[in-house]
């Protein structure tokens, strides 16, 4: 199964909208995309997971790696749109407090 990735620029943030499953087979695609964006100087990333119905620990590892990479370049990485199975996974691993900080899409927050 492939991972769908579309990109949209929203001000200083880049939204990566994903669809499908994130695991050992598809994780490298996402890692490559994040690395590419940061290399291009776009280190503020929002990962929209609303159409992702499965993520395993390999996928979480990619997101943690992405978080470190963006922060080391003065940016940040936030996950939004978690479906129920993903919320459970993020909670189990404590990543809900780190990757979905404040639970608010930073774009929406900036607009209010």
């Amino acid at each position, binding site marked *: *199964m492939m991972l769908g990735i579309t990109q949209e620029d929203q001000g200083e943030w880049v939204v990566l909208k994903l669809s499908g499953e994130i695991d*050992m087979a598809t994780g490298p695609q996402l890692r490559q995309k994040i690395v590419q964006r940061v290399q291009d100087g776009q280190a503020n990333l929002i990962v929209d997971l609303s159409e992702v119905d499965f993520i395993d620990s390999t996928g979480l590892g990619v997101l943690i790696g992405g978080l470190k990479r963006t922060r080391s370049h003065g940016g940040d990485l936030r996950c939004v749109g978690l479906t129920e199975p993903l919320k*459970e996974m993020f909670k189990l691993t404590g990543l809900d407090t780190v990757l979905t900080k404040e639970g608010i899409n930073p774009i929406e927050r900036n607009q209010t």
Partner: protein
Amino acid sequence: MAKGITLEIPAKAEYLSLVRAVVVSAAGLDPAVEDQRLEDLRLAVSEATTNAIRAHANLGSDERITIRCGLGDDRIEVEVQDRGPGFNPEKLKDTGPLNEPGRLQYEGGFGIPLMRVLADEIQINSADEGTTVQLVVYTPPST
């Protein structure tokens, strides 16, 4: 177990999605199993199979991974068997509790701790000729 399936796959990541789908479909044949437990099983099986694929990294491409899923009266049992070089589960690096903020320094190592949380029982038998991970999820008695 009287009811169940056996699946043999090449040790390639592109088969993970198939394994998850087949195991969850087989486990779902038990009408008593709750959706949340199927989700737990989906993730635990994915973790076990991912580890098995990694264990095959240096083996010949013909070596296969075997996944068995059995349905019992009060349980679903899944066994993932690889033919990799084996490891000592006691000597795994302790990366702290799963939800500890310090965990963030590690990008991997979530697999076995996650399986321990998701499954009701887990047994890991590892030797030079391979590793078998057995996962058990309890199910309510059928009425």
